[in-house]
């Protein structure tokens, strides 16, 4: 009988201790994911890595911005899908999965169905090569891409699929692949923006290019965590060189008072700051040169 009692108590104990955190501790678990000092860099926990990964903006935003400027679709600035078979290591597959996903978003927004389907194929093959293809619903996305009035669904489906891939990679302790996918996607997005800005100067694009320093810092921080890999270390060094191209650029905001209003039943915050960007054509050229160089190493 004592054994029975002991067993029951043990079961109870196991169930009671299943949760891993003290509620009071969790109330204060907000972590600063922006610190870049070396001591933190060496100690990035999986939660911090996950937090930084989540903070990286979706490149689709940049594609919308490019289209909004009124510039025409330019397929010559996108990666070629003829290179798919050249990407034969996980490192290259992950980076180019990111590149193709950005190109896919760009083609989608401009309603270029055939190009979108081609890039979709690129994303699928890279994902298959990384054993995450099961999270990419190729057929559904292909159908949506062929249907010009389903842009919002297409973007949602594509983004959700990429989200699932990244989630799975992190669960499988392959966050390094997620970081490479994000880096490839971001490099391609900045390359597209600077390429377009080189052809036709536009204030909105220039502001967006200058402000990319924020994301560049986040990616450098992530890559720094994987510096034991020579390839990741080299990639980080490339981004540090790009960072040098940003050193003379000054982004400031003229202070303004935020207003709170209710719009459509939603609490709306209207910020009134005004960005003041100090960036010369030479700075822009330097960024364009360096990002082109990095991108060329990724896609070659």
């Amino acid at each position, binding site marked *: *009988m004592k054994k*029975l*009692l002991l067993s*029951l*108590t043990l*079961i109870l104990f196991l*169930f009671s201790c*299943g*949760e*891993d*955190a*003290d*509620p009071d501790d*969790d*109330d*204060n*678990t*907000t972590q600063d*994911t*922006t610190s870049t000092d070396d001591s933190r860099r060496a100690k990035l926990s999986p939660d911090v890595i996950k*937090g*930084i990964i*989540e*903070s*990286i*903006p979706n490149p*689709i*935003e940049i594609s*919308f*911005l490019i289209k*909004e400027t009124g510039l025409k679709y330019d397929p010559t600035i996108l990666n070629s899908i003829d290179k798919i078979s050249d990407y034969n290591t996980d490192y290259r597959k992950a980076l180019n999965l990111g590149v193709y996903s950005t190109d896919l978003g760009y083609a989608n927004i401009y309603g270029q169905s055939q190009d979108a389907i081609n890039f979709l194929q690129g994303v699928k093959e890279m994902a298959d090569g990384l054993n995450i293809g099961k999270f990419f619903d190729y057929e559904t996305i292909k159908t949506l891409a062929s249907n010009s009035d389903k842009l*919002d669904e297409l*973007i*949602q489906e594509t*983004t*959700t699929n990429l*989200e699932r891939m990244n989630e799975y990679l992190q669960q499988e302790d392959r966050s390094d692949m997620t970081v490479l996918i994000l880096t490839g996607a971001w490099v391609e997005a900045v390359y597209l923006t600077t390429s377009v800005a080189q052809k036709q100067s536009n204030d*909105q694009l220039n*502001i*967006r290019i200058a*402000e990319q320093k*924020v994301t560049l810092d*986040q990616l450098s921080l992530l890559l720094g965590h994987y510096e034991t890999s020579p390839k990741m270390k080299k990639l980080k060094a490339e981004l540090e060189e790009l960072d040098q191209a940003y050193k003379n650029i000054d*982004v400031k905001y003229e202070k*303004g008072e*935020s207003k*709170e209003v209710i*719009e*459509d*039943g*939603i*609490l*709306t*915050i*209207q*910020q*009134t*700051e*005004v*960005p003041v960007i100090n960036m010369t054509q030479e700075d822009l050229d330097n960024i364009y040169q360096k990002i082109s160089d990095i991108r060329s190493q990724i896609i070659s």
Partner: protein
Amino acid sequence: MERRSIFIVLLLILNTLSWRVQAQCEASVIEAYNTQCLEKIKPLGFNFLKNYKLDGQGGNKRVIEVSYVFSTGTTYVIAVANAHAENKGLAITLFDAQRNKVASSFIEDKKVYYPAIQLECKKTGIYYISFSFVDTKEFCGGAVLGFKR
């Protein structure tokens, strides 16, 4: 005496088990909440950016924080959904890069929960989005981030 002890232990086990069942926040449930969020923001012209799964682990995790780089000239929306039509018990608080509070969807003195926060961004930077379970026993929800130009 021993029978009584067994009865008490069994009662405790049942209580623990029932608490755990209540605490579960299934992926399919969260997905349904995310869909509800999307239905709120789509008619307002927002494009989808991200889903957030708000699993409060039965109350062990009352605050879930994420971050995102918001860009100048873009309007962002963060919408939440839970078991209540009025989002009761689930609040969004937005902080800027310096951790200054920008807005909260929960108006404490009126006990009102707005279903979403919209930010007309004029200052690029990292923003922290904090989801809190407030005065509730339901620790499950979904959130979506969207944007429009």
